[in-house]
């Protein structure tokens, strides 16, 4: 799902402050606490936003950053986006060596200037000017200065003293100046560990914070936005593409979106309305009708992202989508909404952050947010969510792209924050039923059936359209721990109605079971070995967060080779803790048949950082037991 909703245009702008403190340019004055774990240190970050009116915003930005090593180059971030509404008034960078001596000055005209078309976007009228600089020695310091004027005030750059991992900040200031007729709202987040100084008077709010140590990314950690300190800023009276609006809460905000962005875009041709009404005429329920419409959209359209002018915020007209058969997430969601309306099914436009990280909207702070659009159909029991940019996903399945997060649902009556569907571990089940035979030479012949549901369906359904060759590769990699495996038969079935993916595979491999003198060592778990061990941290900083849980249930019949008999079985094993549980047992059915049963459940949730080691130990234990072997011994000739 490669959708993109360019609402989070980056506004990089800013500062005329003249620092006289020469030590900001030398690299030797950085304290140890700031250089720890840091690839770069922001020496000074100063952003001054000045609203002249609700349709004129000046942003002056100055950033002095010392880069300590090669990884730190990316943190220089000396770039500025612009388009028809954003004029760059100033742009300059000066590079200093470690002693603080100026070694290069880069003028506005020497910045690289390219189209800001990102992957997945066909066209955008946004452009970017960026600094291209090859460091000749580390550390070095860059002073980056910009000033821009923006006619859009719907987005005001937040105060983010640090904007990435492994970057620390010495001094950071932010101010916003505004005329008396404008109201400014702010929200401070994740400053618990820092001393954030705030001053506010009738026409200015300013912030100051010092000495923020670098954050490090951790596996199973919270997302960056949940830990990094920031102040969100919004103007209650704002302008977007020349249209003035007022919104101070999500309800107002939703009203505005509905009125200015959605309303009036529905101009479906009568012929299409009649066509879809005909299509659903035998459906008696809203759900039935919605499924038909969704199928219609999937067959008719494809995802193409074009971001031009207000088109960056506003969906295309539905007649356009109807004619062209393509659109971006806004256009396709809006089109689907219009078709649903044509058959009498009510649905709502939804704005959200897409992506695996489950970033939520701020419940108590209304501002332009999000990078994607989907659709919501309110239902008696459980709302239906529709991803309209994907031609393959089943009706109502949203997967890890938009699941389990707070989103803005836009209705004619106003906006509201709603939580999208969460896939519980109990419904995200993979069921394995299989059997394998071991020959006297240790050869394995196996047949297995896998059924996946819930979030486990997410990683499977694309297999349906893979070629045979790709499938062969897929299964060889899935069972990469079996040497010289050859896949014999593959059959996959995608049940979009029940949202269940079924795979039937048979394979064989020599020397699966290792012969050691007159014994044979047989790895019991052939189909589903968990080899994942979470990374080790000497000093875990953040809480443990398991975003999505799952359940694996395996039942496997094992046929032993005729010349061998059972000598020793692995001990049955059962662990249960707050992270989930694991249970493995081998039962003797008869002298040549064993039944292996395995249950592995991982629950989602957030746990204190002290639990991380226990969580890792749990996975280590599972990996160890998944690697258990049965000892067989050769029958003694009578």
């Amino acid at each position: 799902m490669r959708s993109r909703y360019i609402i989070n245009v980056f506004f990089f702008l800013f500062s005329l402050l003249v620092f006289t403190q020469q030590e900001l340019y030398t690299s030797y004055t950085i304290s140890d606490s700031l250089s720890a774990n840091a690839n770069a240190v922001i020496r000074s970050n100063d952003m001054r936003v000045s609203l002249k009116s609700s349709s004129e915003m000046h942003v002056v930005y100055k950033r002095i950053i010392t880069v300590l090593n090669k990884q730190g180059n990316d943190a220089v971030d000396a770039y500025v986006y612009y388009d028809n509404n954003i004029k760059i008034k100033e742009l300059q960078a000066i590079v200093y060596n470690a002693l603080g001596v100026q070694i290069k000055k880069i003028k506005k005209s020497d910045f690289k200037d390219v189209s800001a078309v990102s992957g997945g976007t066909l066209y955008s009228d946004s452009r970017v000017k960026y600094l291209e600089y090859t460091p000749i020695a580390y550390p070095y310091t860059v002073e980056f200065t910009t000033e821009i004027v923006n006619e859009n005030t719907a987005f005001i750059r937040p105060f983010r003293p640090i904007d990435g991992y492994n970057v620390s900040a010495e001094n950071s200031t932010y101010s916003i100046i505004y005329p008396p007729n404008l109201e400014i709202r702010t929200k401070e987040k994740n400053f618990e560990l820092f001393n954030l100084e705030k001053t506010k008077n009738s026409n200015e709010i300013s912030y100051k914070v010092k000495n923020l140590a670098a954050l490090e990314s951790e596996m199973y950690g919270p997302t960056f936005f949940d830990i990094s300190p920031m102040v969100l800023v919004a103007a209650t009276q704002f302008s977007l593409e020349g249209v003035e609006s007022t919104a101070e809460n999500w309800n107002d905000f939703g009203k505005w979106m509905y009125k200015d962005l959605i309303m009036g875009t529905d101009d479906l041709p009568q012929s299409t309305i009649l066509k879809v009404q005909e299509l659903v005429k035998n459906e008696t329920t809203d759900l039935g009708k919605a499924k038909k419409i969704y199928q219609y959209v999937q067959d008719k359209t494809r995802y193409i992202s074009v971001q031009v002018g207000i088109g960056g915020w506003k969906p295309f007209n539905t007649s356009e989508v109807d004619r062209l058969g393509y659109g971006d997430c806004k256009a396709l969601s809006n089109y689907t909404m219009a078709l649903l309306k044509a058959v009498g099914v009510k649905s709502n436009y939804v704005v959200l952050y897409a992506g695996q990280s489950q970033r939520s909207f701020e419940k108590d702070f209304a501002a332009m947010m999000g990078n994607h659009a989907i659709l919501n159909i309110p239902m008696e029991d459980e709302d239906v969510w529709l991803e309209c940019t994907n031609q393959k996903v089943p009706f109502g399945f949203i997967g890890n792209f938009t699941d389990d997060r707070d989103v803005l649902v836009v209705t004619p009556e106003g906006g509201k924050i709603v939580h999208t569907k969460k896939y519980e571990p109990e419904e995200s089940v993979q069921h394995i039923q299989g059997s394998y035979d071991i020959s006297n030479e240790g050869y394995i012949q196996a047949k297995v059936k896998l059924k996946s549901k819930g979030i486990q369906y997410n990683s499977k359904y694309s297999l349906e359209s893979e070629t045979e060759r790709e499938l062969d590769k897929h299964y060889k990699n899935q069972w990469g721990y079996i040497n010289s495996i050859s896949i014999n038969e593959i059959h996959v079935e995608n049940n979009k109605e029940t949202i269940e993916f079924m795979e039937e595979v048979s394979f064989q491999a020599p020397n699966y079971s290792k012969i050691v003198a007159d014994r044979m060592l047989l790895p019991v778990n052939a189909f589903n070995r968990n080899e994942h061990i979470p990374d080790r941290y000497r000093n875990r900083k953040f809480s443990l967060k398991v975003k999505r849980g799952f359940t694996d249930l395996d039942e496997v019949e094992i046929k032993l080779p005729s010349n061998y008999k059972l000598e020793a079985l692995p001990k049955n094993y059962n662990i249960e803790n707050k992270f989930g549980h694991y249970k493995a047992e081998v039962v003797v059915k008869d002298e040549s048949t064993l039944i292996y049963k395995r249950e592995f459940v991982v629950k989602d949730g957030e746990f204190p950082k002290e639990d991380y080691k226990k969580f890792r130990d749990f996975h280590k234990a599972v990996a160890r037991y998944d690697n258990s072997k049965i000892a067989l011994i050769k029958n003694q000739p009578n």
Partner: protein
Amino acid sequence: MGLSFALSVSAQDYDFGDVSKEELQETFNSIDSSAHACYLYKYRRTHIEYNQATGFQLITEVHDRVKIYDKEGLDFATKALRLYKDGSDEESLVGLKGYTYNLENDKITEDKLKKDGVFKTELSRYRNEKKFTMPNVKTGSIIEYKYQINSPFITKVDEFVFQHDIPVKTLVAIFETPEYFNFKVNTKGYIPISPKKSVKSGKILFTDKTRSSSVYGAQTKFSNSNINFKKNVDEFNLSDVPALKAEPYVNSIDNYRSSLNYELSFTRFPNAATKNYSTTWEDVIKTIYRSSSFGDELDKTSYFKDDIDALIGTTSDPIKRAGMIYQFVKSKIKWNGYYGYYVNDGVKKAYKDHVGNVAEINLMLTAMLNYAGVKAYPVLVSTRQNGIPLFPTREGYNYVITYVKENGQGFLLDATSQYCSANVLPYRVLNWQGRVITEHGNSQLLDLYPKELSMSSVSMMVDIDDEGMLTGVLRDFKTNHKALSYRINYNESNKDEFLEQLENKYKGIEISDFEVKNENDLSKPVIESYKFVKESQADIIGDKMYFSPLFFFKVDENPFKLNRREYPVDFGYPSETAYRININIPEGYKIEELPESGVFALPDNLGTFKYNVSGIGSKIQVLISTKINSPIISPLYYDDLKMYFSQLVEKEAEQIVLTKV
């Protein structure tokens, strides 16, 4: 007879807009059922035309008809065209016309590509991009478009590509040039391609305007004159061209894509001298050598004179001088990431700014060496990404390094990476052969693949306890390319992160006393050492313990999984990994069984695997080495290679058995 017949048929079949119901009804490709889409017709005609106002122009006409079989195939409904520009000269796209055809209720419907489906983007100073996306495309649709690109850059004829990521049913390609232009043809790939050649006549019409005054007033006269000439025509007709499918461990799949390249070799206009572009490698090299962005830059010395004099003043040995200068350039000038054998801002500016592209750095190095009396030559290289320079073209190469020849020894230098040393070149450069440019622009080929083995020798002393916990110390010596990649990795990373990554690579190992030696002393092997603990390294079943003597260093997977392979396996450099492991077994156990020692080899001395496990009392000694002697292995040996790795995985999985006393 056959050809002309076939031609007229194809011309009729694929008239623009003449899409048939049968084509629309097709649900899969009959020759490749896994294809997501297919070019039913792919036509290109490139020709050179004269226009009095603009001079010669290169004109390319394209007409494609594409069938979309499934949803993955929808990607082919969007097309991006790169258009080059240079100052006021720029390529232009004209006459774009497109339709989408669908079958609805047994009737063919058409949707026209309109302006709102066409987008222009300025990518950089030298490149524009035009994209278009077709309307109303779905599974089963056929899209058809045609357009023309007019280019003032007549020496740059885009490659004729015959093999695509999807199959092609009928392909027609035509290249037509006036007799004044002579092009060199280069082909690559596995599909045999040969053009049908013919000659046509052409005419250029000149209009002359003369003005004369007389007593009756001014008068303008027009007169026309014709120049008749011959046109050489190459025509290619292919049908049912299979899709090109990617395979792993290939340096660049484009090396194997069937295609053909026309490169201008010389022009000969009436009453004018022949002008050479390039024909042979000698010509190519001369063109490059004579360019002011190459040869002239080699001759400049004034900018570094004083610094180099001071640097080498105390030594006269050329090899020592070479070493000093190489070190000097590496530490002084940093690479900005740009490739090329031509300088960008010039060596002088690069020297002053301490930053340069590949050519600036290595041409400067060559010039300094020559200045110091060391015999050094530039070497043109095609990087792994750029593919193999099979035919003499200027685009064949994209990189330059330095060759030093002194006292009968020769070695290659690249100063773009500070961790490189003599004959240890960056991985990107290890690609077949380079071309050394000797005096006066003569040249010869030089193998770029390293001859010397890159070693990793691991020695390890471990104790295993009765619960399978492993405690030990490890020391790893790395040389040449293994040392190079280690140095880049280690020196350029955050040390804590490096250690964490190392621990995670060996899933759950816990490391202490980590130390790296010689990470910056390139004259010695880099040495990594540490203590470690790792749990559950043995299976304990009943009164026996089972474990692999290589523990976590065991190779678990055969990298070669496919049943067949078309392309060579490219390792980049020859290498050896050797393990010497001493294992102390837990008290109360004795050795019951050790895996048999063994050796197996790839044919023609391409590689060997040696495996030796011996034990006495409570000590076991393990000696295992794997060696690949050739950087590149032909697909003829693929089965052997696959088998070799399979045996290696098997052998390394064999178990030591201990029994309770």
